[in-house]
């Protein structure tokens, strides 16, 4: 039995009709058209002209005019390309444009012969979930479904409960990703920290998530140098500013290192803090040394710490209020005092 619960042989017209109605009811008409198109273009040995395609795929009968058909066909071609279906155009006689037709290259269509182990498939499935709530969620899911068609059951036992995620909440992510992928120059308005927005012209090299934030690394055409941009500071729509593939990315650029270098403070140096007993737990935890206080100062310890960036460290240390006093270095002490005076409502003029 097949196709319907009415019994009988599989090719009964009534069953097809029932299945058809059911498929249409499930909202599948467009999918049905695309699937018939894929089958027609894969099955053919000859190039199919648009007219032949229109006749070969029953759902194109919905189009009242040739114009409507052509619009629909253009959209369908785009959809198939996005899915990685290699639609090629050509003809028996290249001199006559009119004869140009389409087909799907079946060898280019097929996934190369690969076999994944259950453990490998489990890792792949976890890799696809990295994008669960981000821009590439759709492609990630489709990719995994394709690999599932190979028939291997994943063994997820060693990956239980692990969920690395990325999020791409910045509106600039999608256009910048596409431009980076296609090697297309872009232009956008960019807000510098504390500055006015300015127009940038960039050849994107890579998009990098670093410490939870997205950055674009690329060649800044106006400054003729490599620059790093934070996606959350792109304050306009991203516009394409040239043709795809119109530049190349230099070999051997480690985009993450570029971002890290622009974000990370370079050197660290020792700091000496006076910390009240029982407080500053996180500081003590990463201290290079703790000297207990003596005599009248037994209620405090001296904590030695390596600090990288003065301002970042001052931010953290000021938060401890009276529990932590910076003894050294003087710049760090001054930076914390400046914050405390500000928080106390004392202006710099009256600073001690």
């Amino acid at each position, binding site marked *: 039995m*097949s196709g319907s619960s009415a019994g009988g042989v599989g090719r009964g017209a009534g069953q097809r009709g029932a299945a058809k109605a059911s498929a249409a009811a499930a909202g599948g008409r467009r*999918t049905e058209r695309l699937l018939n198109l894929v*089958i027609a273009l894969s099955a053919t040995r000859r190039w199919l002209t648009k007219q032949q395609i229109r006749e070969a795929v029953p759902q194109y009968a919905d189009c009242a005019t040739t114009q409507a058909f052509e619009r629909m066909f253009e959209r369908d071609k785009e959809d198939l390309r996005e899915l990685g279906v290699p639609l090629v155009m050509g003809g028996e006689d290249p001199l006559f444009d009119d004869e140009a037709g389409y087909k799907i290259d079946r060898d280019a269509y097929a996934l*190369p012969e690969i076999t994944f182990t259950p453990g490998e498939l489990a890792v792949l499935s976890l890799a696809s979930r*990295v994008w669960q709530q981000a821009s590439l969620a759709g492609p990630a899911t489709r990719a995994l479904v394709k690999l599932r068609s190979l028939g291997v059951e994943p063994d997820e036992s060693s990956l239980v*409960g692990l969920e690395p995620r990325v999020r791409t909440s910045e509106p600039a992510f999608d256009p910048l990703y596409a431009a980076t992928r296609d090697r297309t120059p872009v232009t956008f308005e960019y807000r510098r920290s504390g500055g006015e927005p300015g127009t940038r012209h960039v050849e994107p090299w890579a998009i990098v998530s670093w410490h939870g934030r997205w950055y674009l690394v690329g060649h800044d055409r106006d400054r003729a140098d490599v620059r790093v941009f934070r996606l959350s500071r792109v304050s306009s729509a991203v516009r394409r500013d040239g043709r795809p593939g119109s530049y190349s990315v230099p070999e051997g650029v480690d985009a993450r290192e570029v971002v890290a270098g622009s974000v990370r403070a370079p050197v660290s140096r020792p700091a000496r803090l006076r910390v009240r007993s029982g407080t500053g737990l996180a500081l003590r935890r990463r201290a290079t040394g703790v000297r207990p206080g003596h005599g009248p100062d037994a209620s405090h310890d001296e904590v030695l710490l390596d600090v990288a960036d003065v301002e970042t460290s001052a931010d953290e240390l000021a938060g401890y209020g009276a529990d932590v006093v910076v003894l050294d270095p003087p710049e760090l002490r001054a930076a914390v005092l400046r914050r405390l005076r500000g928080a106390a409502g004392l202006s710099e003029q009256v600073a001690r």
Partner: protein
Amino acid sequence: MSGRASTERLSRLLAEVPYLLTHQGIPLTEAAEHFGLSTDDLVHDLELLFVCGTPGHLPDDLIDAQWDSGYVYLSNADAIARPSRLAVDEAVALLVGLRTLAEVPGLHDREALDGALAKLSQAAGEASAAADSVAVDVRVAGSVLGAAASEDALAAARTALREHRRLHLTYLVPSRDERTERDVDPMRLLSVDGRWYLEAWCHRSEGTRLFRVDRIEAATVLEVDGTPPPQAERRDVDSDLFRPSPDDLVVTIDLAPQAAWVVDYYPVESVEPAPEDAWEEAQLRVRLRTADTRWVHRLLLRLGAGARVVDPGWLGVDVREAALAALAAYDGGPAGAGA
């Protein structure tokens, strides 16, 4: 059906066909499960395949599908018998995902990861070059405790999850400058925005809690079953993770331009330009909702002259007093007076 939904479905159909062709007679339920579908969804897909085929669309041209017996048989689908190649974005998504996993500390199945990466790169061909355009860094960083401590905690949590065992945590709450001891039943490890979180049932608070891994001072895997109780519910990471509770205190703060970055870093409830009658340096007025004012207190100390509390008034007074007390500590300490 929207354009996106129908291409997603087409992609799924093109994957189902090769699988079903090579698994003739597979139980319907098993095939559905393999693709993460309900049996109804799979039957809808089979119904659609059943009416599609090669041009002409006479019965012999159409794909033949049978499933009424509860077992699926598929034939006459030669044109789409092989799984289709990965599209560029699909290859990028998986390759970048794998590279992201490669940096997860303590991921045990290294061999599987390396194997998957190598095979996928090969299968993706040219598409794999595009994967270099995106990189994700999840290495443990920005830690208040130092990276080594976090990796130990992460490894312990992974062991506990895998073996369903209870964990004993020594956990720092920097906003209260407090160290806590608790037993937890781990539920999952999440990495969101570059930070690792352990979601677990906490026996001390009798509830599901989210722990920042970089604040775990010590984690010991106990010889006790760590299966979370049935009432332990996962949060929806994307909407609930940092969702404040309606009972929280609302704090309104004015920010000067040099403190405007706060908006990018903290989950503020609203941001608006500071009103005319605000403090003269104010650029933005933000509202925060918090269960614990201590971290706001710390934030305000670090912002110094860059921020002022609008409401509640007592918080502004508290912060000012704490700052004055700290300045007094600087004056009176053994380092002598002044800066």
